């Protein structure tokens, strides 16, 4: 299962964090900065840390890091991250680090439609975005 999803920029600032397994607040900050340090220092996109495995992808200045358990297929999660970015692209037209930051609640909603409780629930882009577009219509109307 997926243990957490993080989006961090190169300075180590967290842009989005979602944990599917309880992790104490105090530990989170340390964990996130260490992750960025590890990801930055390697040229490879896949890495091993004690307790869980990491799959990460870099998109310009943003790192999307997913922590997974041993039973998960890393290459599949790699594709999942890309799928997630494509969904974000579709909704926001152009995704930069700032977009994530200013629309944090919407990104969370999208993430919830894709991953629930540590497992993938939907990968089809239009279906993922359906509730969000409905919400937008409700907010406008």
């Amino acid at each position, binding site marked *: 299962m997926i243990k957490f999803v993080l989006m961090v920029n190169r300075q180590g600032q967290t842009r989005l964090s979602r944990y599917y397994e309880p992790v104490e607040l105090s530990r989170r900050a340390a964990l996130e900065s260490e992750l960025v340090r590890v990801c930055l220092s390697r040229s490879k996109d896949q890495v*091993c840390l004690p307790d869980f495995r990491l799959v990460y992808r870099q998109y310009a200045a943003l790192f999307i890091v997913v922590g997974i358990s041993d039973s998960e297929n890393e290459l599949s999660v790699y594709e999942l991250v890309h799928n997630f970015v494509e969904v974000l692209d579709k909704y926001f037209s152009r995704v930069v680090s700032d977009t994530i930051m200013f629309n944090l609640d919407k990104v969370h909603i999208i993430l919830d439609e894709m991953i629930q409780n540590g497992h993938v629930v939907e990968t089809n882009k239009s279906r993922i975005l359906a*509730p969000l577009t409905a919400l937008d219509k409700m907010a406008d109307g």
Partner: protein
Amino acid sequence: LVPPPRLRELIRTIRTARTQAEEREMIQKECAAIRSSFREEDNTYRCRNVAKLLYMHMLGYPAHFGQLECLKLIASQKFTDKRIGYLGAMLLLDERQDVHLLMTNCIKNDLNHSTQYVQGLALCTLGCMGSSEMCRDLAGEVEKLLKTSNSYLRKKAALCAVHVIRKVPELMEMFLPATKNLLSEKNHGVLHTSVVLLTEMCERSPDMLSHFRKLVPQLVRILKNLIMSGYSPEHDVSGISDPFLQVRILRLLRILGRSDDDSSEAMNDILAQVATNTETSKNVGNAILYETVLTIMDIKSESGLRVLAINILGRFLLNNDKNIRYVALTSLLKTVQTDHNAVQRHRSTIVDCLKDLDVSIKRRAMELSFALVNGNNIRGMMKELLYFLDSCDPEFKADCASGVFLAAEKYAPSKRWHIDTIMRVLTTAGSYVRDDSVPNLIQLITNSVEMHAYTVQRLYKALLDDISQQPLVQVSSWCIGEYGDLLVSGQCEEEEPIQVTEDEVLDVLEGLLVSNLSTPVTRGYALTAIMKLSTRFSSVNRIKKVVSIYGSSIDVELQQRAVEYNALFKKYDHMRPALLERMPIMEKTATNGPTEIVQTNGETEPSVLDTKHPPPVTQPANQVRGVIISKYAGLHLCNLYIGIPPMTAYNKNGLKIEFTFERANPNPNIAVITIHASNSTEADMTDFVFQAAVPKTFQLQLLSPSSNVVPALNQGTVTQVIRVLNPQKQQLRMRIKLTYTHKGSPVQDLAEVNNFPPQSWQ
């Protein structure tokens, strides 16, 4: 009254902060404003305020005062409120807070709401952080939604059911009828989550597993459709139709086929089809192939299919993408024991990976190379591995050196080769060799009787070059102390004997004593070596002088030794030759610890080496001072060799705990036990805690463990040291308590350990 700022404005404001202190100030100000707004029970802006609170929570600031507000938002009728409320609940609450129980009623109502998006929210939140009580209360509603025809809700209900089952395993039966036609759904989202639900049920209950085996044909059909169907724009990812679903189905097939011949046979064809038809040019295809390989290796597949799988892995090794290579090496590591010959065919590719630039790949390649070493390829492999040892990063050197020693011990084609290999390791990576290798090597050298002259000569020459690598220096000093006479008399047969005088040898050893590079342990070795030479060399006076000088050394250990040796010269000179004579051949007891010897096709190989933990210490071990316990006052001389055999203290549910023993010098009443915990199941055991209690006449001290995760499939061990004081020399008994988390559930067990070998407490 000014409306409170929106989330965006807050973020913009915070970004203008130039220091951490400034940011903190801004946030505290905002928190204060939000708090007063909450107190005023402001309904209009609550949503906005909670959103800001969530952002601040993400940055690491406390946000607990917003918990109750989330509940109020959930209870509101507006969808925007509910949305933020549920999000807040998922981020801020978990079952440790009592507040969360208040949500139960809201969730119950929302599960029956008229709008599907609200129902979806409730399902999502329940599935995320519902406690066992909540799950028990609401399981019925979830089950109802599992049977609905609305695919949006059905898929979420399936995952929510997974969470309910995890929290309250007894309720699994309840969801069984709903699963009947889950797989006939067309909607991929539902299919996907249904497969996840079925996987969870099968993993938890062997009855469910046998029950669901009948689904194998249906799963095979679905998979076939995915592969054979043409382009489907809805699910396409780089030309492959819904790879995520394919991977999930393959995983479920793996679980279903695992120990069952019929199921395995039923899926044979489709696995072969997937393996041969999937596009390998993109990562997507490789992801599916990877899962297929894992499945093939796990079920009872026929050998042709297994060879196909290993060949796929072999091809992965040649892929340009380092991720693929990494994944291939990891999988090969898991299968090297069972399909050894097939993996051997790819040995040269694996060895090439040692030269890869990436650190993780190098490590995996190293472990795999060690696993592939056998009697036939030892010379070639060792050449590559020694070359790797020369050029690799320091973080690898210790493990590599230990691995080389282990492999050399098992498969050395000749004693000369063995000693040469050891010399090579000591001279190139001497400072990285683990301290426990020193006694092992000494034992090895002692037992290779015909090589003594050659060994001591080579070690002496190495010492002349470099005295900075402590393990090398220690082994060399010990050898010179033992075989110095052979060195001086030039008896070497294997190579040109060097001309060296007694004085030159003593110069070198004394040099070690004064050098800043020598550690106290090394100095101890050097002093003892000098002492031993007093019975082998003729320049006894020089040795007496050195020994008496060190009788006033600041280092207490050296001082004690020197004083004792002095006493040996003065009062017990008649005993000296006997005490310092040549060491006898030491018996080797069996290796213990995490390495298991697996018999495959007549070859015995070591299993996979740990990444983090050193390979086991062969038993004799620790003290190498070469003196004997004596009853004479003032003369403490301790036993070299304590061969207490290891024992298995506990072996249940895949967790095995072995005890290895040492005696702590100088107090012979203290037994030092090292526990080695290994895990042969498929899932890691986390939060592993080992506790022990002993009867009143003993005292126990537990040192910190090496880690608290016992990795799956015997890939590593957790070690921990226990010191037991046994002044009354009573029979050692122990009660142990083990707690760990396995596959999400906590496990606890108590056991009595009574089978301690007599030597450990006598």
